[in-house]
């Protein structure tokens, strides 16, 4: 450890906050190291903690929180209301061909694709290998046993992982955690990637909201699952 961090914690704190220097961190400007480490010095911090919209100023046309958003009228989304998914709904003719809703939810063992390849966390999280959570009922209908390699597919692409039976997922829905890697060195899915299956159709209404980047609904995805031999 010493070869990587060869100074004391105090020395690092002085260095990072530049204590006692002209360009000191604003929170400690004008304070000495001795003052900061003895007693309870008052840091140069705002006395009111940051609370979003504490000033009750909202960047909307009316200046208020808007439950009715006039600018979204052209998109018929001026009030919160149910809208049929673009794809993952039983009324979609595609549902006959791809009768399962595919989710790619987050696992608590990584943040999106960060920390994915950390050896300790891989050990906890199925050796880093992606898997398909599937209800045993859906699996039996398809001749799939727990641990079988399965192909998840639709018209956009495929994903191959092992099946994991769980009653924790509703029949009709399957899930494979997002954020795994498929790089030259790291292969966390047997073949393909959850993102091969999802569509990228953004909600057009999002494009006119300030400071809001458009995004697709990755849970809006129909697939079929079949057992892979070998």
């Amino acid at each position, binding site marked *: 450890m010493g070869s990587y961090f060869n100074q004391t914690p105090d020395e690092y704190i002085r260095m990072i906050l530049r204590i006692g220097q002209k360009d000191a961190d604003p929170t400690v400007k004008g304070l000495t190291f001795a003052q900061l480490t003895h007693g309870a010095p008052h840091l140069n911090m705002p006395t009111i903690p940051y609370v979003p919209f504490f000033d009750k100023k909202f960047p909307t046309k009316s200046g208020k929180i808007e439950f009715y958003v006039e600018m979204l009228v052209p998109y018929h989304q001026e009030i919160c209301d149910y809208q049929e998914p673009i794809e993952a709904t039983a009324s979609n003719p595609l549902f006959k061909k791809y009768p399962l809703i595919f989710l790619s939810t987050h696992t608590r063992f990584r943040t999106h694709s960060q920390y994915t390849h950390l050896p300790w966390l891989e050990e906890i999280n199925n050796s880093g290998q992606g898997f398909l959570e599937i209800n045993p009922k859906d699996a039996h209908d398809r001749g799939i046993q727990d641990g079988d390699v399965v192909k998840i597919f639709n018209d956009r692409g495929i994903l191959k992982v092992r099946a*994991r039976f769980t*009653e924790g997922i*509703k*029949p009709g829905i399957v899930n494979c955690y997002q954020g795994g890697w498929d790089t030259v060195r790291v292969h966390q899915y047997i073949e393909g990637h959850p993102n091969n299956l999802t569509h990228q159709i953004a909600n057009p209404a999002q494009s006119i909201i300030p400071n809001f980047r458009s995004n697709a609904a990755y849970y809006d995805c129909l697939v079929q699952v079949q057992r892979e031999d070998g």
Partner: protein
Amino acid sequence: MGCWTCAVGCKAINDEPLGYWWNRILTTEPNGSAQVATSASPAIDVPHGVFPNLELAYLPVACQHCNNAPCQKVCPVGATFRREDGVILIDYERCIGCRYCLAACPYGVRIFNWGPGERVPDFIIGYGEDYRTEGRLVFEPVRPMGVMEKCTLCVERIDVGEEPFCVAVCPVGARVFGDLNDPQSEVSTLINEEGASQLLAQLGTDPNIYYLPVRHPDKVSE
């Protein structure tokens, strides 16, 4: 809540090699801990029951520090010993690697050093020093090949008044450390008031690790 922070903390403070976990978190049924061997899920987070009537609880399992420890009884060289305060330890200078204790422990918490062990990162990040108690070598940052290892209840920490690391790092205060002989201690009070149980109590090992009942099991139903 199954976050594995205690297990990762344990792995860090004790510099456990890849593939070694002194402390693991099983997914079980709420209050099914007395039958852990039959109720643990095949994989983490897999609940019990049939959708939508599901139950799930997390059970951290490390050395139970038994008063009547099978591992200690079978050790032919007295390497595994019980300290006066109840902590079960392994004397690395005495262990001959026969692995009788590995077979005898009903909790599956002992790990044998078949090889040198691969550590990531490859420098020492944990306690980092040899530790002796009663003159016996009970912790080394890198355990030698051919000895058993397991949870030491962080003797090097509790001997200087600190909590075991798993207790210290738990983000939700799910673990409590204290003196079972003191009826006024927090652990004694919790055990008495909430009715705690020991793992596989029917085996008569009389562990010093107690599990509090799950007071509000999360039930999911439509």
